[in-house]
């Protein structure tokens, strides 16, 4: 696991998640991107990211890669933050979620790195 992702996940775990916003055109992105894919400038600045997001899509995985083979079935969620960025993580505290539901982002430390998680809010 790359150090930049460990740093990113630890900020989530600390309750202080971040994202990147282009000072030139406003496009939003996630680390470790340095060039804006929209305007091509290298003017991303770090900003504070919300801790809640909206479910865009989810899937329950029954056949997995070795690292998660003993944990099936589990659900992976892509959620969209108000700031515009999307993040992929595993669902916690529920068996399923519907698109449009609000979830809270968190991070778990595992033997081999960090895992982003989402839990239904309230």
């Amino acid at each position, binding site marked *: 696991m790359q150090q*930049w992702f460990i740093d990113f996940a630890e900020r989530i775990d600390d309750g202080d998640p971040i994202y990147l916003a282009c000072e030139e055109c406003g496009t939003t992105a996630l680390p470790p991107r340095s060039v804006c894919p929209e305007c091509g400038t290298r003017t991303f600045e770090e900003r504070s990211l919300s801790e809640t997001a909206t479910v865009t899509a989810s899937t329950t995985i029954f056949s997995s890669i070795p690292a998660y083979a003993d944990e099936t079935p589990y659900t992976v969620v892509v959620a969209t933050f108000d700031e515009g960025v999307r993040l992929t993580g595993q669902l916690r505290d529920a068996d399923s979620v519907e698109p449009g539901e609000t979830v809270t982002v968190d991070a778990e430390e595992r033997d081999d790195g960090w895992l982003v998680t989402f839990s239904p809010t309230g």
Partner: protein
Amino acid sequence: MTVQIAGVASTEFGEHPDSSTRELFTDAALEALEDASLSVHDIEELYAGNFIGDLTDDQAHVGAMLADYIGAREAASMRTESACASASSAARSGAQAIAAGDADVALVGGVEMMHASGLGEVTDALANAADNEYENEAGLTFPGIYALMAQAYMREFDADQEDLAAVAVKNYENGTTNPIAQRLEETDVENVLDSPPVATPLNLQDCCPITDGASAAVLVSAAYAEEHGLETTVSFEGSGQSSDSLALQDRPDLARTRAAERAADQAYDSAGISPDDVDVVELHDCFTIAEILAIESLGFFERGEGARGAVEGETAVDGRIPVNTSGGLLAKGHPVGATGVAQLVEITKQLEGRHPNQVDDPTVGLTHTVGGSGASCVVNVLRAGGE
């Protein structure tokens, strides 16, 4: 300078426990050369797709290895890798070398041996096409990624699992008459829906199998064909390739493959055609939803209309736009690093009028190959008519 297809071949797709990456590729390459009436010593450039050999075989430097083992040690050789679109990149590179006047004879192809490793290891290796930190580390598999795309599509356009299943039913049926195909049994919608879940809403029969296979094609310049009296009947007419964000999460619309749209536009421009001119298509149906997204990206259906392609028979062998008459990746099989040239082999046979599921007198054929969840796409256009 026009590029001609002088010979094509694919091995049988399925399990080859007694073969290996270098042996299986040799089988396809020598058969394609025989089909072209050329010898290995005529090859000036070799481009070969191979995606996960580093992991399954502990072997990189695959271009030189394949050149060595087919007996073309003097040729310029290179492995191309753009995940599951690796062999289409190989074909495109070979055609570009000839079109630029840098070579007269290029062997293009691909090979993948996927059965030698366990299912878990292969799934892990294939996941390398996704974003390791943002996707794989979250436990997202490739079926999982396409499942997310399927859910987004079904929700946006009110499609259902029956619509997805219709793609599998059509392609399985086509596969039953293709002698190289891996899956030789038909299925029906009920069977697809009853097959075990892999990543909801995709079931086992929505997913292509794990495949050993190799394919090869001999590309030559028109001048070389004429000079050497080669009877070529198909030309490599145009090509397009584009990229997109590596991770699905970075795309504004999960149910849309923009790299494919851009690659198709480029390919149509370079071949001087429009989607209406295409008579037969081999496209990247690694999962049922992928065929639906592809026929929209290629301009055969409006966005949101692709789900009715298989349901209403429009993509059948005798339909308005025949898609995956070979059985596609779903039934023919998907040796990932070979697929793009395997598609080219099938289209060449269609344009030569010798395909087991022959379309009525096709003139223009197209291949569409996707790497990852759509971060790479290559579209190649072939036309009947040679030297």
